[in-house]
């Protein structure tokens, strides 16, 4: 089983991102589950969303406490939330930030950090405003590119299903971030 935790702020689209990702897994023949932190969500308040993916139906109904992947949708969250809590050995944390991974070396744990400024592809494709860009699709692009656990075409189908407005812009932002992650991933291997 692979468990994934999203950290975002109310209104950033963490829940929709978790739906799209779980749908991507589903399309690839896996069994998946997506759910938010249950509560009274307020715009701007820290929120979490979770995805479980397995070869059989996921029976667990508790929240994810030991994720292999953590996706942080805004870099400032790392100062107010323990985003590294419970992350599995060898796991991966993806942070939406223009800074390099070494800027987050203070986050202790045996896991890798990848960063990408996904605000840029969001704004280039007209998603949201400079102060509040809609980054849930480009961050999925970065995640798919860095992790290789889901195919980009599966995520694009999920975007089409769950984002009925500005769908093409979202797909374009996703693809931009995906390709950037792929090229960065190749570079770091050299």
């Amino acid at each position, binding site marked *: 089983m692979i468990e994934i935790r999203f950290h975002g702020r109310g209104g950033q689209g963490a829940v929709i991102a978790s739906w799209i990702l779980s749908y991507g897994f589903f399309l690839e023949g896996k069994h998946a589950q997506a759910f938010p932190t249950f509560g009274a969500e307020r715009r701007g308040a820290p929120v979490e969303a979770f995805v479980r993916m397995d070869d059989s139906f996921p029976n*667990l*109904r*508790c929240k994810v406490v030991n994720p292999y992947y953590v996706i942080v949708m805004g870099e400032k969250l790392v100062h107010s939330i323990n985003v590294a809590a419970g992350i599995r050995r060898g796991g991966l944390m993806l942070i939406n930030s223009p800074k390099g991974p070494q800027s987050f070396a203070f986050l202790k744990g045996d896991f890798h950090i990848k960063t990408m400024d996904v605000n840029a592809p969001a704004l280039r494709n007209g998603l949201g405003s400079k102060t509040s860009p809609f980054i849930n699709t480009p961050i999925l692009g970065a995640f798919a590119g860095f992790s290789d656990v889901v195919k980009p075409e599966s995520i694009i189908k999920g975007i089409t299903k769950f984002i009925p407005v500005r769908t093409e812009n979202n797909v374009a932002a996703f693809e931009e971030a995906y390709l950037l992650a792929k090229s960065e991933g190749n570079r770091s291997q050299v």
Partner: protein
Amino acid sequence: MSKDMMTGSDAVALGVKLAKPDLIFAYPITPQTHIVETLSEIAPSWGGRFINVESEFSAIASCLGAVSAGSRAFTATSSHGLLLMHEVLHWFVGARMPLVMVNANRAIGSPWNIWADQSDSLAQRDTGWLQIYCETCQEALDTVIQGYYISEKLLLPVMVMIDGFIISHTMEEVEVHEPQKVDAFLPPYAPQFKLDVDDPRSFGNAALPDDYYRMRKAIQRTFTSGFEVFRDCHNLFEDVFGTRYDLMEAYLCDDAETIFLVAGALTGTTRVAVDMMREKGMKVGLIKLRVFRPFPKHALQKVIAGHQDVIVLNRAVSYGAQGTLTQELRSAFYNVDDNPDIYDVIISLGGKEVFPEILMGVCEGIKADPAFKDEMIWV
């Protein structure tokens, strides 16, 4: 047959769509809101009407009127909304009116709490509604459809429970049934009596003591014979859709020394806990109590043997007494000579998280000290 990913709320809405009620009356309340939000959009697709009323009392009272006039109706609620309906819940049963209502199980204030807890529906235990608790989004969809079958055969209302947020807000895979299959399973509602100006009858009139007593006795008789309707429903559902449902499900109980008894979505986490404990060599199993009313006493007596311990996982308490499910199970074994030790565990209220490790700890703790048998155990 096709599968899709959807939340429990949308699975319920899809079940309602396939059952095609004429009228839906509802008042939104967290965490039921998405069910009625979706229904308000899709009701016209099958010629149904969604009416957003001013309170839950109006919602259930309007359903009573609709069903009395021969319509199939639906409503959904949660927590304080269900409590506000209480008076009409009794009336529905006395009037022998069929209805399916989905309740998203949620705690009751004070203090305010919107999370999963079964106190709301279990507090309606003695109203005479049939009660079914669902483990998954698929089960929620299927139970809505089955609910109409059972309700319209028995002329008693059916309450379908999904744990608030844990099922209502979780997206997972759901098999989307073909409408023709649902039509084959569930015929249109054809009431024997209804409000009809061309065939006038009296509904909800006064009854003298002997008549009242006779009619109440008939309700109990229907509950007793209701198990046959459940059996027919489950057999037909399996024939049409290929999925087997029962009053309860026993998982790894045959050789178990300890059995967890659980209702609702917590069953899933308990399955994982049982598998973990089995891997460690602990002989444990679980019983998923699906149908709470009518209470499947005989089915439980068949599955649980006297030498086994039962740990009841409660999400509701009858204060000053026991967990609500514990009371029911102990009562079921009162006249049984070789009865099991039954442990009363209040596992979660107001959405308190339950991890498999907690269930394992409970099991180990009880093994270590049998004196827990006489206590109400708060984890």
